C-alpha cells in the first residue's frame, strides 16, 4: 500500500465531494429553505460547466468561445448564466406546486441537454471541449497540482457555506422558511411569496452553475455525458436527504458520505476475483442502491437534521428588539 497514492486518492475524492457539496448546498437553498422541488439540477450544472469551459478554454475552430479568460471569470460567468437560466425557468414555472415544478424542471433540463448535444457550433456537440484550464495552472506539475485545485474547490465550498448560513439566519431566510412551512399564512401577512421563491430558485441555480464550472475545470474536458441529468440530480437529492435538508452542515456531510458510498464501493467490489470483473460492477451498483435505501430509512431526518425552527432564538430576538 502506497501512502502517497492514498493521499492523492483522497485529494481526488475530496475534489469531487466538494463539487457535490456545493450542489448540495445549492439544493438546500432551493429545497431546504424554500421548499422548491428542483429535479433539473443537472441542467443548471451543465449551463455553468459549458459557460466556464467555453470562456476559459483554448481557442478552437469547432465551437464557440475559446477566449482563454481567467478561470475565476469563467466561474463567475457560470454563476450568472446558470442564475439567468434559473430565473427564466422560475419565471415560467415557479407558481407550480412541488411535483409539477419537479416535472417541469426535469423537462427543461432534458431540453437543455439536447441543445448541448445537438448544437455543435456552440458546444462542439458530443465531441466535447478539450484543453480546459485549471486555476493556478503551471504553479505545480503533475498530480501535485490536484492539491491546489482541492484547496480552490474547498475555499469555494467554504464561501458558499458561509453565504448560505447568512441567508438562513437573515430575515430573508426566516421569511423563506415561513413560506415553505405555510405558504398561505405567509401570503396572508403580505409577503410576496412568488418573488421570494423566485429569488431562492435563482440563487440555488447560480450555485449549481458554479459547481458545474468546477467540474469542467477539474476534468479539463467537457462533453455532454459529463452532465447526465438523472445521475447528477439523483445523487444530489440523496445527498441532501441523507445529510438533513434545511441544515447546511448536513448538506456537506451528506455530500461526503453519499459520495463515499458511491466511490468506495468500487474498492470493495474490486476485491472480487477477476472473473467477476463485469459482475462486480453490477454488484457495486446493487450495493449502492441498497445502501441508499438503508440511509433513507435509517436516517429519516438526515445525519444532521434541520435546527429546530428556532422558537427560543426568535423570542430572544423579539425581546432585544422590543
Amino acid at each position, binding site marked *: *500500500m*502506497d501512502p502517497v*497514492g*492514498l*493521499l*492523492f*486518492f483522497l485529494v*481526488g*475524492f475530496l475534489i*469531487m465531494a466538494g463539487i457535490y457539496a456545493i450542489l448540495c448546498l445549492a439544493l438546500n437553498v432551493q429545497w431546504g429553505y424554500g421548499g422548491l422541488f428542483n429535479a433539473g439540477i443537472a441542467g443548471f450544472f451543465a449551463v455553468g460547466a459549458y459557460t466556464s469551459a467555453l470562456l476559459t478554454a483554448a481557442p478552437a475552430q469547432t465551437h464557440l468561445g475559446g477566449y482563454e479568460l481567467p478561470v475565476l471569470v469563467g466561474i463567475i460567468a457560470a454563476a450568472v448564466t446558470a442564475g439567468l437560466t434559473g430565473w427564466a425557468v422560475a419565471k415560467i414555472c415557479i407558481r407550480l406546486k412541488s411535483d409539477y415544478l419537479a416535472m417541469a424542471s426535469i423537462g427543461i433540463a432534458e431540453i437543455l441537454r439536447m441543445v448541448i*448535444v*445537438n448544437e*455543435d457550433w456552440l458546444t462542439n*456537440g*458530443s*465531441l*466535447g471541449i*478539450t*484543453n480546459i484550464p485549471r486555476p493556478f495552472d503551471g504553479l505545480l*506539475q*503533475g*498530480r501535485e*497540482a*490536484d492539491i491546489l485545485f482541492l484547496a480552490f474547490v474547498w475555499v469555494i465550498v467554504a464561501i458558499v457555506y458561509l453565504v448560505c448560513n447568512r441567508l438562513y439566519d437573515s430575515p430573508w431566510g426566516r421569511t423563506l422558511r415561513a413560506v415553505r412551512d405555510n405558504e398561505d399564512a405567509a401570503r396572508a401577512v403580505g409577503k410576496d411569496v412568488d418573488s421570494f421563491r423566485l429569488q431562492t430558485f435563482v440563487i440555488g441555480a447560480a450555485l449549481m452553475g458554479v459547481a458545474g464550472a468546477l*467540474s469542467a475545470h*477539474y*476534468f*479539463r*474536458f*467537457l*462533453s455532454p*455525458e*459529463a452532465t*447526465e441529468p438523472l*445521475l447528477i440530480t439523483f445523487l444530489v437529492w440523496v445527498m441532501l436527504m441523507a445529510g438533513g435538508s434545511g441544515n447546511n452542515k448536513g448538506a456537506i*456531510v451528506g455530500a*461526503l*458520505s453519499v459520495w*463515499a*458510498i*458511491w*466511490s*468506495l464501493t*468500487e*474498492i*470493495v467490489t*474490486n*476485491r472480487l476475483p*477477476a*472473473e467477476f*470483473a*463485469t459482475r*462486480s*460492477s*453490477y454488484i*457495486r*451498483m446493487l450495493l449502492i442502491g441498497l445502501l441508499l435505501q438503508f440511509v433513507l430509512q435509517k*436516517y429519516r431526518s438526515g*445525519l444532521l437534521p434541520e435546527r429546530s425552527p428556532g422558537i427560543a432564538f426568535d423570542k430572544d430576538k423579539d425581546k432585544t428588539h422590543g
Partner: protein
Amino acid sequence: MKKSIVMAAVAGLLASTAMAQAEDVKVGALMDVTGPLASFIPPLMNAANFAIKHVNDGGGLLTGKAVLVVGDSQAASQPAVDAANKLVNVENVPIVMGALASGSTIAAATAVTIPAGVVQISPTATSPSMTGMKDGDHLFRLVPSDNYQGEVLTKIVLAEGIKKVAITYVNNDYGVGIATTFNEAFKKAGGEVTAFEKHEDKKNSYRSEIATLAKNGPEALVVIAYASGSGSKIVKQAIEGGFFARFIGTDGLRDDQLIKEVGADALKDSFFSAPTSPDKNDASAKLHEMFNAEYKEGADKPFVDQTYDATFLAALAVEKAGSTDRTKMSQALRDVASAPGDVIGPGEWAKAKELIKAGKDINYEGAGGSYEFDANGDVTGYIGKFVVDGETYKQIAIFQ
C-alpha cells in the same frame, strides 16, 4: 458515518493487499461496464481477462502474476475520473488499459493519468481531439482516429460502384467523428450525399428519420452507429419499411448482434468496414480461434481484438520496463509495439518473455493491427472490408 465507511474501506483494502502476493503486478483497466455501453462489455471483459490469462499461463508478469484491476468508467467523465483515480492511486497500477469511449478516455487521461504520469492505452477511442493533446507521451490508442476510417470507407464505397448515399450517424463522439470525415471525403471524391442526419441513440423508433433519409434516391444507407444501440434498430426498421435494402456500416455496426436482430438474408448486399490486421497476418484468426475455444462465443464482436491487444501490450510494456516504474512505461510500450524486432502475436507471451529476458527487441503484431505508434500515440491502421457470411462476418479485402 462517513468516517466509519472510509475506515472500513481502508481496512478492507489493507487486508486484501496484504493477502495478495507481493510480486503480483496489477494491470489497470478502465471499462465502461455500466452505463450506455454496457452491452458491449461482456466479450471485451473476456478479451482483457484472456490476455491476462495468456500472460500468467506463459510465465507470469515480472516475477509474479498479472492481476487485472477493473475500474468502471461508465462511459461518462465523472465516473471515469473517479475510477481512474482509484486505479492510479489506490491500486497503484503501473499502466492503464482503457477506457473505451473517447469521452471517458479523455477525461480520465487529462484529470488523472497524465498528471500522475501513468500511461493509458485506449483500445477503441477514436476522437480526433486526442491527437493534438499535450499528454507527455502518456496517452496511446490502438484504433486510427476517425479521420482515417472515414476516408478509407470512402474508397470502399466508391469501389463498390456506389455513388449516391444517405448517411445517418449516432450523435456521440464515435458517430460524429467518422460520419463527418466520411461525408467530406465522399463528396470530395465525387460521390453524392443525399442526406446527412444525426440521430439519438436511445430511441425505439427511427421510422420518421428513415423516411426522410430515403428521399432523393440514395443507393444505400450509411449507418454509423452501434449494432447494440440504434444501429440494428435503424437497419431493421429501414428494411421493414421497404426504404433501403443495402447498408454500409463501420466497426460499431459490424457485430453479430446485427445478424441476430436482422437476419443474414437481409444483409446480403451490405458491407462493413472495421480496423483489421495487415495482410498475411493470421493473428486475428488465431486469436478468434483461441477466444472461442475458451469462451464459446464473442470473438467476432467489435473491439474484442483491440481490447485483447491493449491489455497484452500493457503487460508487455511492464515486462519490457522490467519493473513497475511508471516513468519507464511509455518508452517500453513504444519498444514492444513497434518494429523492428522479433514478431510476437497474440498468446505468445512465453516467447516474448524469453526474448525480453535475452535483451532482444520485440514487435507485437496484434489481432487488430500492427500498432506502429506515431509521435501522438496514434496508429495508422488497416481497415478491412467485411460482408456477412452465415452467422458472422467475413473479411474480403484490406485497405490502408
